[in-house]
């Protein structure tokens, strides 16, 4: 039996601190609500320099920015709508858990994973 694994923290923030942060939408993103009620987010992306150079060989010089779309599902839409620059991650998790009768932990993992994905795409930032 292996006992006593070492638990090292790689993050500067504790979980409790991270949950108090407030997600804020990227002001350069725009959203569209489809008839089904789900949200499509359009957001700018910066091309890698070598791709931009390669494209310039064939096209007129243009700002090195493109855009992408992200269609959310109904649960993603719900969380996206809760991001208002006032509610903390904890508030969003609690509301989500209550709305769907989920356990706190499950709601926390679901919401934080979703927010992390939005953050990786540059759609949201977190402020203290």
């Amino acid at each position, binding site marked *: *039996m*292996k*006992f006593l694994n070492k*638990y090292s923290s790689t993050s500067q923030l*504790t979980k409790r601190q991270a949950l108090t942060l407030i997600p804020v939408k990227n002001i350069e993103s725009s959203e569209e609500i489809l008839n089904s009620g789900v949200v499509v987010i359009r957001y700018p992306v910066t091309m890698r320099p070598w791709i931009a150079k390669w494209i310039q060989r064939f096209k007129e010089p243009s700002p090195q920015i493109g855009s992408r779309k992200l269609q959310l599902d109904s649960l993603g839409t719900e969380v996206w709508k809760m991001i208002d620059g006032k509610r903390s991650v904890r508030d969003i998790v609690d509301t989500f858990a209550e709305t769907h009768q989920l356990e706190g932990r499950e709601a926390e993992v679901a919401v934080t*994973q979703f927010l992390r994905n939005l953050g990786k795409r540059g759609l949201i930032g977190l402020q203290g």
Partner: protein
Amino acid sequence: MLKKIAWNGIHLSVPSTWELGRIDTRHLLFDNHAGPAMEIKWGPVKGHFSHRSHLKKLIAQQKHHPDKNLEEWHLPPTWESALSNFIAKGFSWQSGDENGRGAILFCPSCKTAVMFQVFNIADHMTGEAILKTLKSLQDHRNDDQTAWIVFDIHALLPRTFQLNDYQFKPGNYKLAFTDGFQTVKLFRWAPASAFLSQTDLSQFAANALEFNRENLVTTSFLEHPAVEWRSNIISGRDNWLYRFKPKPAFHWVRVWHVAEKNRILGIRIDSKKPIDANMMMSICANYRLNPV
């Protein structure tokens, strides 16, 4: 207030504010808001078990962490009394502001060794709460069943079924067990309102469990809307060759919608021999949701 946890033979009650932070086949780590609160590991022992040699191993492992000072710790009488079903030897460690106290336990009746440690005791629980948790610790049941109580799942299976696979993804929990010729899979989906927003229970079950919707029978189970499918193979003398086929020939699926808890539960049994109806009924009857 305590909540029950049962996993792969271990039962214990922990403060309701604790949550499972890590779950492995024979390892549970409980978190509270401040970080890890308690860890427990266990395993079967073949032959003689020596507390002293395990403690020496533990101490030897800490040589890589010079700032961690692990040593033998004499259990207080209250702990000894709470752990009276085991032969126990305590240990403690200190590393900067962090500390831990725990014990290596051995159960002579089921030959299982258990190691638990509580982190930063003063931060996490009062003396009375820790005693309740320790007193609730069991490593075997007296019947031939194994309980599985984690998150919102509560299941009871015959002891012969061994845990084969598990997954706890948000929205989708799955536990798979095997027993020789047959496998049992338990499913739990949440929130049901999201899964059933675009489809009905039959289509959902057929998609999630990958079988033909036309085979499903709509029924009810414990007053919940349900769908069920049994493979239509006549069991008996003519079918003994089925057990030599590479894939199971007998199947039984039941999926039901617990609307008031916004969840869907499912059981799938695949077997190379005819499925025991009583066993299926017993597993279904004992598979339910814990209050959130």
